[in-house]
């Protein structure tokens, strides 16, 4: 429609953009500056508002405190494990969905997205009733005679990983379905008619072609796992401390705002670096794979 010359002030355009921009700047961006500033202030125990004396103390604690380091280790370990499990589980389901006709596909899509739109609280509540000491899973296993003592799912990494995988599977499945659905079936058929069996077709044709979706999904899920709060808080029952639960504890319960601000800044830098590293590594992997295949067919 209207092509606008950049130098003239375009009032309708400004009018369209201004409300959303103002809202985002005032409510979304300014709090990040607040974080940055408070992270250099001094905490006074017993009061909420910190002293404005400049200090690096908070960052020193973020980086060197051994308890904090164990929290990072726990968070990264749980998140990586959950991401790998999510990927492995998502793939067959994404493939099944991608192959369906439109009507079935859209029904499956709605079912798959339910854990996401249902919200973390309801999913976690369901998991708690399933995973409790006398919950549905332990009850079923016991009545079948498979176990005699209930398995402890809550208050440890196992329950958290189960909860995280279920909550964030949609984030992996959606990009995977898009990637798998875009693959031209004649390529797979060609490989098959040349004598490759199903497993070989999958690893040499389907899987490499689905890598963009797999990478996008993995990054989304890894980030979601690293920044999760409700699932580790409820299923960990306060016994497992990860980034999210620790930030909540320091900001809301201890009310040490300078430290929680420094922690939050560190956290966002850390997750940003992880995302960059993962996308760099996976792109490098894809490239070397393509090169290896080109060398093979030359």
């Amino acid at each position, binding site marked *: *429609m209207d092509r*606008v010359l950049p130098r003239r002030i375009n009032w309708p355009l400004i009018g369209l953009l201004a409300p959303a921009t103002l809202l985002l700047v005032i*409510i979304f961006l300014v709090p990040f500056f607040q*974080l940055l500033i408070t992270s250099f202030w001094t905490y006074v125990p017993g009061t909420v508002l910190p002293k404005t004396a400049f200090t690096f103390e908070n960052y020193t604690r973020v980086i060197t405190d051994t308890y904090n380091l164990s929290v990072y280790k726990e968070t990264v370990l749980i998140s990586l494990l959950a991401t790998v499990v999510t990927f492995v589980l998502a793939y067959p389901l994404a493939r099944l969905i991608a192959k369906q006709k439109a009507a079935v596909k859209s029904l499956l899509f709605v079912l798959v997205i339910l854990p996401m739109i249902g919200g973390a609280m309801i999913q976690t*509540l369901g998991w708690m009733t399933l995973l409790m000491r006398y919950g549905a899973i332990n009850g079923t296993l016991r009545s079948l005679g498979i176990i005699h003592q209930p398995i402890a799912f809550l208050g440890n990494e196992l329950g958290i990983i189960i909860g995280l995988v279920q909550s964030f599977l949609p984030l992996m499945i959606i990009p995977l379905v898009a990637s798998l659905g875009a693959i031209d079936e004649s390529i797979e058929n060609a490989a098959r008619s040349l004598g490759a069996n199903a497993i070989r077709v999958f690893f040499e044709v389907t899987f490499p072609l689905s890598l963009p979706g797999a990478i996008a999904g993995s990054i989304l899920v890894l980030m979601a796992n690293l920044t999760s709060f409700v699932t580790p808080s409820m299923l960990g029952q306060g016994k497992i401390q990860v980034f999210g639960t620790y930030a909540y504890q320091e900001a809301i319960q201890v009310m040490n705002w300078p430290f929680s601000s420094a922690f939050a800044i560190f956290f966002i830098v850390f997750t940003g670096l992880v995302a960059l590293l993962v996308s760099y590594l996976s792109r490098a992997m894809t490239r070397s794979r393509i090169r290896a295949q080109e060398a093979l067919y030359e």
Partner: protein
Amino acid sequence: MNDKIVAKLTNGIALIVLAFMLLPIIVLFLNAFNASRIFEFPPRGFTLEWFIQLSNSQEYQTSIRVSTMLAISAVVLALVTGVPAAFAIDRYQFPGRNFMQGLFLSPLLLPSIVWAVGLVQYYARLRILGSFPGMVLAHSIIIIPYVIRLVLSSFAFLDRELENAARSLGASPIRTFFEITVPLIIPGIIISAIFGFMISFTDVVVSSFVSGALYIPFPVRVYSELRSEGIDPLTIAISAVIMAAIILIALVGEKMIHWSKYV
């Protein structure tokens, strides 16, 4: 190995994964009718007791009312600001266009828990911590990215020829916008409104940071209850009702406006 066996095996695994994803939801539905007061498995018998108690519980009704009001207000604010912004991004070429789009989507990309740590301090300074307007503003931020994305994708589906036809038949740009463009992007707006409502209604992270003692949204109530007292059958019953509503909306929405193609 035989190709057919491999295919059957992977499809079997896929269905197990689907069952795993829906397991907590299914169990919630079953438990809502479980007769024992203390949570027990296997269930002791069928009852509607919890649903009857629910309709008499002031506390639950209040938190549901707070969540509903909050979600509606936040959706309205996100639509009023987000739809014009999406329109501007779709129709205008201007310097910093990509930057603006990035800004509008950023609440989806940056971890909300980090933002919440800053927001609680910021709100405390502005003296709006725990206030209803403060909560509405915060929730509209987490909804805006969805509005922008869904409305932008409905602009992408829109056939520009219809607008051109209206213009060439003598309709003014404003008339064309309201009579041709808006009706065509209505599905995108409805979907983002419903999505936004669900996001706000089920949010725990942002709410548990900025809600005070006066307005406690439903998920925050459940969260603090589970941390202190354990599972109350009423909580399970009400969560089952909410989940049933979400499933119904999702299925009807898919049937009527095929929302999955916008995601």
